[in-house]
């Protein structure tokens, strides 16, 4: 679950144009074919670096469980992780649909989007029946 709205800036404008369409955009180097992380600044050469939608699936390479204390003093446990996208780049994200006491290493996950404020913010959720 996404906690609060995120504002786009110049660097994330194209990425957020994709998320509202339900796409998680990567950057593809047309010269080498390499698929780069979304954060790669393609404005250095827009003809060489193009935007392509990722498959949206990946594998958990590390995870942690954040303990958040609410105003009422109660603690909630929020699983987060690093996902290796099927295309290669890593992405730091919350992970929904998992038991925080499970070993999440190697768990297959898929991107989802939550509309908060003006933008659709990506997060990842477990694909059932995987480990």
């Amino acid at each position, binding site marked *: 679950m*996404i*906690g*609060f*709205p*995120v*504002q*786009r*800036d110049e*660097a*994330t404008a194209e990425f957020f144009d994709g998320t509202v369409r339900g796409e998680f955009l990567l950057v593809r180097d047309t010269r080498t074919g390499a698929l780069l*992380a*979304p*954060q*790669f600044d393609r404005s250095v050469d827009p003809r060489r670096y193009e935007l392509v939608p990722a498959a949206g699936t990946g594998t958990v*390479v*590390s*995870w*942690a*469980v*954040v*303990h*958040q204390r609410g105003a009422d003093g109660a603690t909630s*446990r*929020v699983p*987060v*992780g*690093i996902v*290796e996208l099927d295309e*290669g*780049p*890593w992405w*730091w*994200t*919350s992970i929904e649909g998992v038991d*925080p006491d499970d070993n999440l*290493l190697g768990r297959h996950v898929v991107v989802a989007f939550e509309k*908060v404020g003006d933008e659709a*913010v*990506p*997060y990842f959720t477990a694909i059932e029946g995987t480990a």
Partner: protein
Amino acid sequence: MAHPEPAVAGLGITEQGKVYGRTAAQFAAEAVRLAVVDAGLELDDLDGLLVSGRLSDSVGIDLQGSLGLTDLRLLTYMQGYGSTAGQMVQYAAMAVQAGMADTIAIVWADDPLKDRTRASAAYAKAGSAPTGWRGITTANGIYSANTMYALAARRHMARYGTTQDHLGHIAVAQREWAQLNPIAQFYGTPLTLEEYHASRYIAEPFHLYDCCLISNGGVAVIVTSLERARGLRQPPVRILGWAQAHPGNVGIRNDDFGLVSGAAAAGPRALEMADTTLDEIGVVQVYDCYTFTALLTLEDYGFIPKGEGGPALAEPGMLGPKGRLKVNTGGGELSAFYMWGMTPVHEAVVQARGQGGARQVEQYDRVLVSGNGGVLDYHSTLVLGTDR
């Protein structure tokens, strides 16, 4: 013309911890004045000033004016996060070697703690509004260095079988050292392994006592030529070797994340420059923003084989005041005070002068010091040594 050899001639530290009612800039000015007096110099003797802090607008180069310094030949603000203090010593050493400046004060100060503000809120409050790439990560619940380092530590645990019990031994050992350091924030408050395990979770796998303190205060060091230092008040501490290593791509894709840090590259280079081998190092001060960071750095330097740090450091007789490996002898950032890279630099100078009192180690002629910044993004190493 032979280049002058650089040395540390002065050390100044303000009161540390919950010291309220003063700004970072005020702590910085006091630390410089204390370091100058410690060296047996006057403020007018300074011809260089390197400044840093957590936030660029809290401590700046206007410190020159606050100190009334005129005719400086070197002045700048630097930022390499936790690697900054080590870097500042390096650049000051090179300026002395080059003849650019002769007597340089380097200072780091911070004031995150405000009266009646919880420590955990102090850093969170300073965070920027959720915008752009960082905003996406923040909205996903990853907004604290605690969580980011927890993700790093989990990789090490998953790959090598490192356990929370292993990390707990590091926390307990450093707390033992802090009991011998009267300026440590945890002086008089020992820690057992049971208390470590019972402490609340911050971000699993990290308990509260896996995480460093938060401190108000300042630390300053005076770097000059060895020749000049020999004529001053304190035993000179030679700056024998140094290196930096900044791996890059952390968070985008770095398969070494949590497994190897910049210390692996910088450590051997700094030792080679100092013409020193690892077994000649009698005491090591590593950057320990987390128990895990200390473990990783000790592995990367080669004190223990890669992946074996957990069980090796937890072995009886390894860490702590009675241990074979003398690590973070002041209690470190975990148990003494958190002045970022100045915490290990400060204790290294204390030990290399032989002024550690109850915690002074026997073999201190070569001291290894690490600085680590970002989320294992930035690294600096120093090799310090006694004169002759």
